């Protein structure tokens, strides 16, 4: 049993030495935006869009970030990230650590008003699913799992 615990500890320490993150200096500042701009962006989109509301201080956001990064690699669906109630340093650090390679367009919303204007709440994380043309199909509050994310992407692709 002691050997198993030792092996587990060694594995975790080795894991802590690795990491796919990039340096924060390589991540540009996030552009500030408004709910009107996001709505216009969604209305102009020919593709279904997934909007994820996140913050660097939000532990569940960190937990779902690798899944969103993987989902964003899919063809036929666009991803937008809205960073709320945060600062640029925290947001850029989060992207550098978890989302550096993901094709997600991130925006900065310091007051956190955009999700409310889109019909969601002030909590994080929140994931909103839009059909092409900007029709809101579903709002998922809280951590999203792979099954739910895949199902809702399937639904907005079918519209």
């Amino acid at each position, binding site marked *: 049993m002691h050997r198993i615990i030792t092996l587990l500890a060694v594995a*975790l320490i080795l*894991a802590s030495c690795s990491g796919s993150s990039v340096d924060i200096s390589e991540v540009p500042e996030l552009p500030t935006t408004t709910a009107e701009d996001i709505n216009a962006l969604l209305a102009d989109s020919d593709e279904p869009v997934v909007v994820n509301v996140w913050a660097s201080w939000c532990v*569940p956001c*960190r937990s779902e970030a690798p*899944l969103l990064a993987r989902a964003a690699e899919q063809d036929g669906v666009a991803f937008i990230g809205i960073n709320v109630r945060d600062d640029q340093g925290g947001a850029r650090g989060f992207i550098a650590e*978890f989302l550096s390679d993901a094709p997600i367009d991130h925006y900065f919303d310091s007051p956190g008003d955009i999700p409310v204007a889109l019909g969601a709440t002030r909590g994080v994380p929140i994931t909103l699913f839009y059909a092409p043309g900007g029709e809101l199909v579903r709002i998922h509050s*809280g*951590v999203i799992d*792979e099954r739910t994310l*895949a199902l809702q992407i399937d639904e907005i692709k079918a519209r």
Partner: protein
Amino acid sequence: MEFTLLGAAFVAVIPIHFVLSWEAKRTNAAMCARNLWDISLGAVVAGVFVGRLAAMLGDGVNPLTHPGDILIIRGGVATGPATIAAIATAAWFGRGVLWPVLDGLAASALAGLAGWHAGCLVRGTCLGTPSGLPWAVSQEGSAVGRHPVEIYAAVLLIAAAVVLVWSRMKWTLPPGAPTGIALAVAAGVRLITEPLRPSLGGGPVWWYVAGFAAGIATAIWAWRRAGTQPASDTS
């Protein structure tokens, strides 16, 4: 923990307790149901913990620098490592009476898995790939009919659990055979229902293939071993 997930966990542990109690009255269990209940809960907790750690490492998230993430179960639990950890924990608690313990847990584990899948009714996650079958169901506001894939899995698993308990009541199965059968059924059900689940690039199918093969191998080994030993050793 998210409340719907907690609800699904309750739906899962109730059949475990029910089957253990039911089976203890009808089969010659080596340990009383209370001990098996304690062991099963310990195995579940260990399985979820190790499965969550494995999922975090697989996603490139370091558990040492982000220990709070371990608690976000919905962020993902790796099925294969979780299963191995659960079985290893049960085996550890049951050392000395390994096969009676694992065999005693086999049917209840299948029932617990059935409950976990049926917990999709609480979580709202029963839907699978699109289907035109008469019993296809749609999510609210959608015209797309879908397989109720988790209900398929729950029905198959609970049927297997009932058959396993009935078999243990009717025949004396060799030690290890119920464990092998249960492992093969659990992995097999996931394997055949996996194509009906929406996913981002496929589920951990090779883990299910490995589990199915390991279960079949264990059952065959148990029967062959029983066939080469005196009858009194197989009780």
